[in-house]
């Protein structure tokens, strides 16, 4: 992924599920080694944007370039190459339930690299150490708490030393203390690893804490793309409403209303 300029860029990106268009032509750039937070409410299309950036959804039109490959037109082999250089930490962890935490972290290393078993063991221990789960290597995912699952998922996402780390709602469903722990973990990684980090969240405090820049999505459009300071000074009504946690006075559009309840997680 040795590319000059942005490591991820979207150009007039449109994604649709069936007849419903979720992203209405978004364009953005992510620079190497910066931490971008994609902020938005339910139904804003932020999860869809994340899924598109890792190749789980195909755009209906437009382009999404990740490390120099346009995922909209990539072959299966090209997609695999991109995926070996990214790591995604899923909202619910998505650890393989039939494998221990250690085996989960070792999985991509065992399948996709030619490393010796002993080397893999060392790498697994390093990754688990980084997320503070070293003593849980032999636990099954079902024995872990929500926060620990997210940490284990992060260790797995880091296993292949990716150049881009994606986080899907890292603090959703956690109590404030555990959520703060995850935030500080992301901050530590940001300093220690010098990787590009893309975080999708609806948590304001967490977004302002970890982001270099924030992309605000609303109804499938980007309403702001700015540094945290610029965003605080923004006068855009929708952003002010989001920052000040003002509820919608009424649901003006039935389609919007429906979308709130039908968007995929």
């Amino acid at each position, binding site marked *: 992924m040795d590319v000059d300029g942005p490591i991820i860029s979207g150009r007039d990106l449109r994604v649709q599920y069936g007849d419903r268009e979720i992203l209405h032509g978004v364009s953005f750039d992510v620079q190497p080694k910066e931490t971008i937070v994609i902020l938005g409410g339910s139904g804003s299309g932020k999860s869809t944007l994340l899924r598109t950036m890792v190749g789980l959804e195909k755009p209906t039109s437009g382009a999404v370039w990740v490390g120099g490959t346009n995922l909209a037109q990539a072959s299966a082999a090209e997609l*695999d190459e991109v995926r070996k250089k990214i790591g995604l930490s899923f909202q619910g962890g*998505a650890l393989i339930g039939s494998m221990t935490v250690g085996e989960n972290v070792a999985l*991509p290393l065992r*399948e*996709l690299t030619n490393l010796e078993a002993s080397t893999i063991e060392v790498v697994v221990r390093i990754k688990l150490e980084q997320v503070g789960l070293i003593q849980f290597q032999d636990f099954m995912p079902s024995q872990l708490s929500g926060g620990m699952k997210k940490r284990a998922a992060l260790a*797995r996402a880091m296993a292949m030393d990716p150049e881009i780390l994606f986080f899907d709602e890292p603090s959703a469903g956690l109590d404030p203390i555990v959520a703060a722990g995850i935030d500080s973990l992301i901050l530590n990684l940001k300093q220690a690893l010098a990787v590009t980090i893309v975080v999708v969240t609806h948590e304001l405090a967490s977004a302002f804490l970890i982001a270099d820049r924030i992309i605000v999505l609303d109804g499938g459009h980007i309403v702001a793309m700015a540094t945290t300071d610029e965003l605080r000074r923004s006068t855009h009504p929708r952003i002010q409403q989001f920052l000040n946690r003002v509820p919608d006075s009424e649901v003006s559009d039935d389609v919007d209303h429906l979308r709130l309840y039908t968007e995929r997680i």
Partner: protein
Amino acid sequence: MPRLSVVEPLSVIGGAVERGLAYLGGVAQLLGRAFAHAFTSSLKRSLSYQRACHQAMVIGVGAVPVISFITFFIGVIMALQGAYELKRFGALHLIADTVAISITRELGPLVTAIVVIGRSGSAFAAEIGTMKVTEELDALETMALHPIGFLVTPKLLAMLVMMPCLTIWADLMGVLGGSVFGVTGADYTFGTYLSATRDALYMRDIITGLVKSIVFGLVITGVGCQEGFATGAGSEEVGRSTTSAVVTSIFLVVLVDLVFTAIFYVTGGA
């Protein structure tokens, strides 16, 4: 409007046929991809074999006790039912032939398939369906580990090996079951019963059963995994997929059985 009354049922039938064919097409496509992954996967071959061996243990070795009991009992039942009719013709000595042929040609493969559907077909759908609901399939995909190569291929390879093995075992147990009646209810000793069985069977009786069992294995793997991948959001969807995997598999296995038996009958009276 008399025309509508003709068109409407036809369109309903046409729609159902189209959906059925599309479903079969989907299953065939899934199996094709799983086969392709067996040869061209980017996954480590040694680990794929390990997974296939693990599946073979679960699908095959784990099913041996229950299949043994069921086919042994069915052997006894077939002997009793056969004797009821044969006795009237004074042909009780044909009981070994009756049991041997009905078990090897039909009941061995069919009962094996139904037990495997209940144990493994349902488990495939539940496992893959749960993984879909918990985003584990997406996780595999984003790690460049293809879910079909990772999950379906080992199951398919294990099934293709284990179904014929289980069927041979089922045949044997069925014959043993028949011998219980042969020894106690007809004038056989255990030795004469077995040699009568051997004389009654042609190689093609066993081969046709094994051919069927391989096709049953394809159907069970294809339908079980397909239903798993088709699972929607939410845990109750997993239950629906599992039910559907069992019902659809049983239906298709019987249908395939019919087709193959007809083909074997037409081609050379086998």
